[in-house]
């Protein structure tokens, strides 16, 4: 029994509505902040793709393998989204 069925009061419905509106605002703010982070992220990604060719990428626990240059993925033309 994860939850016991019950009827919500008007006050509870109003509280939920308000919280959901605030969450939408929070989500939009996060998306905007993450879009603004794009230049830094591109730099971090470039450094990561370099490191996994020299030091390697983790595959399990402390086991790592070096990635061959031909395995390095190519950035697609679509927008790089990190928040979905």
């Amino acid at each position, binding site marked *: *029994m*994860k*939850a*016991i*069925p*019950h009827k*919500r*009061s008007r*006050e*509870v419905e109003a*509280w*939920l509505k308000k*919280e*959901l509106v*605030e*969450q939408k605002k*929070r*989500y939009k703010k*996060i998306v905007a902040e*993450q879009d603004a*982070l794009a230049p*830094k*992220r591109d730099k*971090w*990604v470039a450094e*990561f*793709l370099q*490191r*996994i060719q020299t*030091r*390697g*990428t*983790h*595959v*399990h*626990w*402390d086991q*790592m393998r070096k*990635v061959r240059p031909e395995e390095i*993925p190519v*950035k*697609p033309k679509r927008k*790089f*989204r*990190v*928040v*979905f």
Partner: protein
Amino acid sequence: MARPHIEPFVDRDVPFKKMTLPGFPKGMQYKMLSIDTDNGACSMTVLFEPGYKQPPGMSYTEYELFIMTGSITVGEKVHGPGSYLFVPAGVAIEALTSPRGATGLLFYNHGEPSFVESDSDHPRAERDRFAAVNAYENMQWTSTNFFPATAPGCLVKVLRFDQRTHAFTFLYCMTPNFWQDNISYHDCVEEAYHIWGTSWMMQFGDLPTGGYFWRPPYINHGAFGCKLGTLAIGRTDSQLYNHFHFNPWTTPEENQERAASRLLHRNPELYKWVNTHGHNHPIDFDYDHGHAHGDTPHHHGDGRVDHGHKKKKRRRR
């Protein structure tokens, strides 16, 4: 669980609000971290003001409470920092007080926050599932038991494990100079809150103390790094499997396809059965056959798992 992708969010950037929902006593404040748009289930940072008093009572949904600072007293037992309580729906806990105040995290798992004054359990309560532990004083750090595993330096304390879904709640820490150079995603929802410390992820940057995320399945995160160490609490809604890779630009849809392909290679017989069995309604002999109620996702060979059934009487065996 229908919550949007909230990542990252830092609760230190927003003020506490008074809890005004009916039933809750005065003196409780909260910051909303995330809330389910369907059923009102939510995760909140909470503040119990000094002198807070709550009579014995229950909630309509199960909830989890983790104490970060200060202490609460439930009945005669004092729960200080590191205390974790799992309270099933309808289980009445004794009077809760906080003479000097406390902060914590409160997770309502399947419905909106509710409090009903009562000194006895609801008839449908499952009291045997109640759990309480002090994770700082009575548990030790262990390595993760995931295969493939996170890199050395990420340790866990499992606070609760659901034997059916493999959902779990856990403390985790990253040691100073922890790093993991891969990208990960999971088949489950993952949620976490930084109790102390800052860690870094290639997609989102730094997540400091008070940092939080609610991440739906199949979303890339990592590489990872942590300079000075981090203590955090995490939760999943089902089994956590580390799908590692190194392509920063894949989408959740591509990741999901890959996860299915990997299932084919790791569990070929199961994959074949799930794909080809005429009725495709897995029955777990440990549990009710949900089909009688139409409450278990399944399809009839057409792959559509979103259809429903009218309620039928349970079959007698």
